[in-house]
């Protein structure tokens, strides 16, 4: 136990050193003008820009609104994906007939790059929120659905057999055994799905939007405001990590038995 603690501590140290090194290289490159500040702005510039955006917003819209609208799109799409993909995936895995209907559709669209069908979604739903949320929804749906189908197939046979021998069948078997037995895999897939949706979100905002973090970055690039681009990317990166950490904490609480099956 003690060893493991030291080990973790060493690793955290390594992570910190890595980032310190990255910042050092960044600082040196800009301090000695090795490249144009239009290509790589200095850390100081980026911090100043960050403060300015926090204070005055970007393009008349505050940073919190940009961040908020992005998060709202992500949240709605992810929530929709979870409440539809989990039951559908579990049913598909459990009842082969449902699987025969749904599987091929998901398998068909899953490998498509989201931006390819985004054009179709814009054509059908316009450039407003609904096409964006639908895009994110579709991107998040596939990983959860596929993981749920696989999770049902991977349930330990003894769980099902012992439950049947204890008198469980139908609804009881599904809700009290199949669903919880799949929960660890469901959670892993939700983390993947939110990650996929997040990357898709930024690309979607780069195509048709007037607000959002992705839009802020793409708009800044048109005017070569490289420090804004950097601010945007750093915020996106940090938010992504925070979201994943939050999901991880939630996972630890809900799926407390993970790894002990």
């Amino acid at each position, binding site marked *: 136990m003690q060893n493991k603690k030291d080990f973790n501590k060493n690793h955290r140290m390594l992570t910190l050193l890595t980032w310190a090194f990255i910042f050092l290289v960044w600082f040196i490159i800009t301090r000695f003008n090795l490249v144009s500040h239009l290509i790589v702005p200095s850390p100081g510039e980026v911090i100043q820009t960050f403060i300015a955006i926090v204070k005055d917003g970007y393009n008349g819209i505050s940073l919190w609104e940009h961040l908020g609208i992005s998060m709202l799109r992500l949240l709605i799409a992810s929530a929709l994906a979870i409440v539809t993909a989990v039951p559908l995936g579990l049913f598909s895995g459990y009842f082969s007939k449902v699987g025969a209907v749904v599987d091929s559709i998901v398998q068909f669209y899953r490998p498509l790059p989201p931006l390819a069908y985004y054009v179709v979604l814009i054509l059908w739903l316009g450039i407003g929120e609904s096409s964006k949320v639908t895009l994110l929804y579709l991107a998040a749906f596939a990983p959860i659905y596929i993981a749920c189908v696989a999770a049902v197939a991977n349930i330990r046979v003894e769980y099902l057999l012992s439950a049947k021998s204890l008198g*469980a069948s139908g609804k009881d078997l599904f809700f009290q055994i199949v669903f919880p037995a799949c929960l660890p895999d469901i959670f892993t897939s939700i983390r993947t799905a939110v990650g996929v949706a997040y990357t898709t979100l930024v690309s979607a905002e780069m195509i048709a939007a007037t607000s959002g973090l992705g839009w802020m970055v793409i708009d800044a690039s048109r005017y070569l405001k490289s420090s804004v681009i950097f601010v945007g990317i750093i915020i996106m990166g940090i938010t992504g990590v925070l979201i994943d950490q939050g999901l991880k904490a939630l996972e630890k609480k809900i799926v407390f038995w993970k790894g002990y099956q």
Partner: protein
Amino acid sequence: MNNELIIEIDNLTVDYPTDNEPVRALDRVDLKICQHDFICVLGPSGCGKSTLLNVIAGFTQPSDGTFLMHGQPVAGPDRQRGVVFQSASLYPWMSVRKNVEFGPKIKGLPATEITRIASHYLEQVHLLEVADQPPFQLSGGMKQRVALARALANEPAILLLDEPFGALDALTRIHMQQLVRKIWQQDQNTIFMITHDVDEALSLGTRLLVMSKCPGTIIQEFSVDFCDRAIDEHTGRVHVDADYLALREEILDLIDV
């Protein structure tokens, strides 16, 4: 003994389909199980002893022959036949108590009754103090005791144990045997147990079935009573006598061909 007949197996055959010829796992097995029998099944691996248990549990359908319980054919697993596997297969998302309550809860018993039953059987396997822990924090022997309590909580007509102590260390195994023996004597259960340990079979069973490989069938049955007369109350070990040793040799010769 003229105890009530519970299970009647006649000419039972099980074939497993494969790409080529179907493989015969069980070949024309006849078996009658009566109330308060403690049957121990011995045999080399691949002799079909697990298949026999799976048929009785309802997990596997016979290819031929009849299997009746209380005179009725069996369609699939149900609460009449409780099963304990070699690996405890407790539900890790439920506490120890919830695991034991699972059967009574499915049955739809009133809450107070469910609690009473769970407490009773947890007490019987000496695990009342860990009732609220998740099962993965328990040792192997404790897990197996929970699995036993969970199966007992349904008060099944017969208890099927599939090498339940196979993965436990020698000392824990003796304690488990002692526990099962005591429960069997107190509650008058009917038990069908698979084991690969001749001593375990001799010290627990009232009827020992020896099975052979190719074809998988019962080649000999022994009636024994060491569990009644030769167990040391305190240690749970058998007082080995000449009869015991002779029988042990005979069974080992049968298995080890």
